[in-house]
Every structure is written in C-alpha cells, then in structure tokens.
C-alpha cells in the first residue's frame, strides 16, 4: 500500500481543519470564518475533479484501531468510480450551497457557527463517500448525523427548530442501532469490516458458509444494514424526521436533506448490495420499503402547502425510488454481479436527483428569501414576473424531477422503471403511479407559487435575489439538463444503467410519458388561477397520521413503561439501595452518640468494662488453647 496522494488528504481533512478552526475561534474570526469555509469548499471541489480520473485503489489514510489478528479498522479511502463520482456530487453541490449561503445567510448573526457546521458536514460526508470499511462508514455516518443536527437546529431559539433537530437525531439513532447490529453480525462471522474482505468472504469464506447454512442470518444482517439506510435516507417507517428537518436554513435543506446526506443511505446500500443480494428476502423487503415510501410520500406531497415541505416529501419519494432500485437490482443475480457502481440505476438516479433537487431547494430558498421568509405557497403567486431567473431555473428543476424527456430526471427514472418492469410488475405500477403523482404535485407547486397573481403583500414586493444566489441556481439548472448526457455522465463517473430490454423499453417509456402527461395536465388544469386549494384530502395533508400514531405510541406505550420503571426505581434503587441503609446508619448513629458523653471517667469505665469483657470471653467462653 502506498501513501495517499495529497489531494485525497486535502479533500478529507481540509474541511475538518476548517470546521475545527471556525468552531473553536468563531468569535475571533467573525467574517473570516465565512471566507475560510467557502474557500475550503471550492478547494475540495477542485480536488474532487482531479480525483475523477485517478486509478482505482484503496489508500490508507491513517491508523485508527488496530489489534493484531483481531480487529483492524483504519481510516482507508477507497477511490473507485462510485466514490469519485459521489465525491464530485457532494463537493459540487456543497460548493454551490456555500456560495448560495453567502447571500441567504447574510443577515444571520450566527453566520460563523453556520459555516463551521457546514464544513463539518462536508468532512463527514466525504468520509462516508471514501469509507473503505463499514467501521469507518459508521463513524462518519454518526458525524453527518451530528452535523445535520447542528444545522437543523441552527435557529435553536425557535422551539420548532430545536424539536426538529432532536427528532432527526433520535429517529436516526433507531436506524443506526440496526446498522450497528448488521455490522457486528458481519464482523462476527467474517472477522473483517472492509468491503473487499466481506466480498471475498461471501464468495469463498466464512460468510459464504453461513449464507448457505443459515439464510436467516444473512437476511437479518442485510436488513440491519438496511435499517441504517432507512434512518438516514428517511424511508418508511422512519421517514418522519425529514419533513421536520425543513426547519433548518434552506441551503442546508438543499445540501443535506435533499442532495447528499439522505442519499448516503442509498450510497451505502449500493456499496453493500452484494450482501443484500445474498438474501432474496432482504431484496424483496428493500425494494418493497422503497416502493411504499415512494408512493406514500408522493401522496403526502400532493396536499402540503409549505413550499419546502412539498419538496421534502418529493425527496422522500425519490429516495424511495432509489432504494427500490437497489432492492430490484439485487434481486437479479445477473445484475447483482456487476452492481457495484457502474450503471446502477439507483446510483444514477441519486446522481441526477442531487442536481435537480438541490436546484429546487435553492430555488425555494430564493423564493423564501424574496418573500421575506414566507413559506406558504398560497401566499405567493405571480412570482414569475418578479423573479424571472429563479422561475426559469425552478421550472427546469421541476421538469427534470417530473421526468420530461430530454432532461436528466427522465433518463434516470427510466432506468429504475426499466428494472422494475423486468423484476416486479407491482413495483413497476407503483413507480408509474408515483411518477404521475410527482408530475401532479410539482405542477401544482409551480402553478400556485409562480403563476397567477400575487396573493400577499410579501409576494407583490418580491424582487430577484442577488447574483451570488443566482449563480448556483444557474449552475445546477445546467447540470439538471445535461447531467444525463452520456459524455457528461461518463466524465463524472456516473454511467447510465444498461437497458437490457430492447422492445420493452418502449413500453416503459410509453407508461412513464402517459403518467407525466396525466399528472402534469391534471395539476395544471386543477390549480390554474386558484386562490385556495380546491381539493382537500385530510389523510394526505396529515401525512397518513403517522406522526400522530408515533406520538400516541409514545404516550400510551413508552410513558406507561416509563411509569413502571420509575416506580421500580423509586422502590428498589431509591428505597432499598439508597434510603434504607442511610436510615439505618443514621438511626444507629443517633443511638450510639449517647456514649460519646465527653467525660473522661466514663470512657475509662467503658475501657475497663471492655477489658473485663474480653478477659471473660477468653477465659470462660473460648476453649482453652491446646485442647
């Protein structure tokens, strides 16, 4: 093994250094911290561009834990097409979000803290992307959770933001436990946590034997890893944190809760897809969970009125697509063999989705900024006239998300539907319906927010945002259009999935076009020139009452348990262990203090009595020595 190239060190450790410097000395640095953070994000982007064409190999970055013959988990950076491509997405969008934040967070008092946390996030995310073993991935997995927590709760004086941050953190913790169980199970059998070793172990090692003898073991291990992805990528039933995470600043939503961190779950699943593929049941569950999430989230999105929440549910739905793709690809052994990175439809959708979803979020950020932090789409309207650049870029993002032919989203969605068509007709149906719903709610969003006439004072006085915020929008809009063009995609290490079905491909395309036309047309006709929502479906607006269900579960389940545990604690820990001995000692003390009278002769008397007592015992009670 050779030492890593310097660019790899820079791309991983520079953001960390910057984050530490900023977070430790933010009062000292003030404005300089912003420059530091933005500069590091640009540097990382350049480094990641340089990494795109390098040799595929694993570089040891630093030692971490090494116990001879038992456990070896260093910080190793894996550089291959998947990680280099993902690194490009992360650093590219990260850089644009940094730039956008310059405008968006201009008036924020805690700007240094924000940028410090952003740099911390860049470090953690880079770590996940480069992780060559599950152990390292888990560490950075937790770190992105932490930075996400810090950024969601950036405006922590708002109780809703603080609660959302807690919710995100706690919900992720549930998934992380599953992840840890999965890692430990695999480690326990194979004795290694690195992807390479696991793979070879699965082909011809302990893991292979176990997989053959106990299929359930592999299923549980794979589902454990999947649970990590369910938490991080906000799949059902742990999806509840993502919509609430929109309490954070909008650029953060674009970077973390749309383009990169939530995609980390999918990225990890693709990395370990060979493990999932080892268990057919796990494949079915992964694909099923993805499909259900895609559909349910799309239904919820149709009835949301907060611009960011619509996008949040849309993100859930698209993540569901990706997860479904992972499961579907893993089902088919012929796919699974070469599903590492190249041509994985899930990974490809992740790649295109990152651009247009970040674009949509930044666009919504621009709208919110222009409307003086108004997020209700029914209080917007007519923004096309006031913010033409934002409108057109937003429209491009919307078109890409809906899957309008010629844009990136169409190509990648096609890839997923194609696999679904080949593997499972049910999931294909769900995919097509979701595509239609996506077209519907995105059309609704654009029509209500941008067309028609302004419905509030804020919207009337909206004006185009500053140039520093428009540049990222334009860059992302361009990427939304061209990212699926083969030459661009190849250059960025995100190869198009191979379409295997010759004539069936047309069927898939026809279905998805019908879904697009029906959804978009329906949305346009229904919402044109409306001042309030003509449809009202309580079930969707209230997100299928899942949050209420969880609240009830906690209220009636956890609170009862807590009551019992509390009672037990009071009786045993508090009473028997702590209070009772204390009471005994104190009682004895107050009895015995009578003896301490302070009179010399009383002591002498007791001494004499004691001596007599000892003599009595020695002479009359104990047997004489020698007998």
């Amino acid at each position, binding site marked *: 093994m050779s030492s890593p190239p310097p660019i790899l060190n820079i791309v991983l450790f520079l953001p960390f250094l910057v984050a530490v410097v900023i977070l430790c000395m933010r009062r000292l640095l003030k404005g300089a911290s912003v420059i530091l953070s933005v500069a590091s994000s640009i540097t990382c982007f350049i480094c990641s561009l340089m990494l795109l064409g390098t040799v595929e190999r694993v570089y040891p970055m630093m030692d971490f834990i090494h116990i001879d013959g038992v456990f070896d988990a260093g910080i190793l950076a894996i550089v291959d097409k998947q990680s280099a491509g993902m690194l490009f997405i992360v650093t590219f969008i990260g850089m644009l979000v940094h730039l956008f934040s310059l405008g968006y967070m201009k008036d924020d008092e805690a700007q240094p803290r924000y940028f410090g946390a952003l740099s911390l996030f860049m470090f953690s995310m880079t770590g996940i992307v480069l992780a060559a073993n599950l152990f390292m991935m888990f560490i950075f997995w937790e770190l992105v959770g932490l930075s996400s927590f810090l950024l969601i709760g950036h405006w922590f004086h708002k109780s809703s933001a603080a609660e959302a941050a807690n919710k995100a953190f706690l919900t992720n913790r549930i998934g992380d436990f599953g992840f840890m169980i999965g890692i430990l199970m695999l480690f326990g059998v194979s004795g290694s946590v690195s992807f390479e070793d696991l793979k070879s172990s699965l082909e011809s090692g302990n893991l292979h034997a176990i997989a053959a003898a106990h299929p359930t073991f592999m299923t549980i291990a794979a589902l454990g890893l999947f649970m990590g992805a369910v938490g991080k990528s906000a799949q059902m039933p742990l999806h509840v944190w993502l919509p609430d995470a929109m309490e954070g600043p909008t650029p953060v939503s674009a970077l973390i809760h749309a383009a990169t961190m939530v995609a980390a779950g999918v990225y990890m699943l693709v990395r370990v897809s060979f493990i999932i593929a080892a268990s057919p049941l796990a494949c079915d569950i992964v694909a099923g969970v993805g499909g259900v999430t895609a559909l349910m989230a799309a239904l919820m999105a149709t009835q949301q009125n907060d611009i960011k929440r619509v996008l949040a549910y849309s993100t859930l739905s698209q993540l569901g697509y990706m997860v479904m793709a992972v499961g579907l690809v893993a089902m088919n052994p012929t796919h699974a063999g070469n599903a590492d990175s190249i041509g994985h439809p899930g990974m490809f959708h992740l790649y295109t989705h990152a651009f247009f979803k970040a674009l949509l979020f930044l666009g919504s950020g621009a709208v919110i900024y222009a409307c003086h932090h108004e997020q209700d789409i029914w209080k917007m309207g007519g923004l096309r006239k006031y913010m033409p650049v934002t409108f057109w870029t937003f429209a491009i993002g919307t078109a890409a998300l809906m899957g309008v032919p010629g844009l990136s989203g169409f190509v990648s969605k096609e890839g997923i539907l194609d696999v679904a068509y080949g593997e499972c007709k049910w999931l294909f149906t769900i995919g097509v319906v979701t595509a239609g719903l996506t077209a519907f709610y995105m059309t609704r969003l654009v029509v209500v927010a941008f067309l028609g006439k302004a419905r509030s004072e804020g919207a009337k006085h909206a004006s185009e945002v500053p140039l520093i915020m428009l540049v990222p929008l334009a860059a992302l809009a361009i990427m939304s259009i061209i990212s699926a063009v083969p030459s661009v995609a190849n250059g960025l290490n995100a190869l198009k999935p191979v379409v295997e079905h010759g004539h069936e491909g047309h069927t898939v395309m026809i279905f998805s076009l019908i879904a697009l036309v029906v959804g978009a047309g329906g949305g346009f006709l229904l919402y044109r020139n409306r001042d309030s929502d003509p449809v009202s479906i309580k079930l969707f607006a209230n997100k299928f009452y899942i949050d209420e269900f969880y609240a009830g579960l906690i209220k009636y389940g956890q609170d009862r348990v807590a009551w019992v545990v509390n009672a037990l604690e009071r009786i045993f820990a508090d009473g028997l262990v702590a209070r009772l001995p204390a009471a005994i000692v104190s009682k004895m003390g107050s009895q015995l203090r009578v003896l*301490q*009278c*302070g*009179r*010399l*002769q009383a002591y*002498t*008397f007791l001494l*004499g009595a004691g001596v007599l007592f000892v003599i009595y015992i020695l002479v009359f009670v104990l047997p004489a020595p020698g007998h």
Partner: protein
Amino acid sequence: MVTLGHYLVVSGALFALGLAGVIARRNILIIYMCLEMMLSAANLTLVAFSRFHLVDHLPDYGAQALVFFTITVAAAEVAVGLAIIVALFRSRQSVDVDSITKLQG
C-alpha cells in the same frame, strides 16, 4: 510458703484499687496516683513471674530488667503528667475532672 498465687492476688487487688480510683475519684491528682498504682501492680506481676519462672534453677532476670525500664519510664511520665496537671490548674484553677469538658461535642 508464699506462692505465685499470693503475689498475683496482691497485684490484682492493687490493680483493681487503682482502676476503681481512676473511675470513681474526681480529683485529677488522685486519679494520677491511682494510675501509678495500676502501673505498680503490673510491675509486681512481672517480678513475681520472673521469680517463679526458673531457667537453669535461677530466676528469669530478663523480666526484672524490664521492670527497671518500666520504673524509669514511669518516672519520666510522672514528670510530664505533673507538668500537664500544673498547666491545667493554672488555666482552670481547678483539679476536678468534671470541669474539664472543653472537648465535649
């Protein structure tokens, strides 16, 4: 014939008398004298045992040498003890132990 038993009885009586005095009397000087009496009782026991414990048909003189040490140390102790009593009397104008309660909690 005076046996070891006689010596021990006298010594025990001396000791008991001393102890009774220490416990019962209030005057610190008397208590002090009683303490000395208890010490003498111990010395007497030692000498008696030495006399009756024959090594090669001779008394064991080790114990008697020990008694000389005890007496010497007791003399030094008396000097210290009396000095303390004098100091006590100077500060309190009294030799009654019941009045010495300064350390009582």
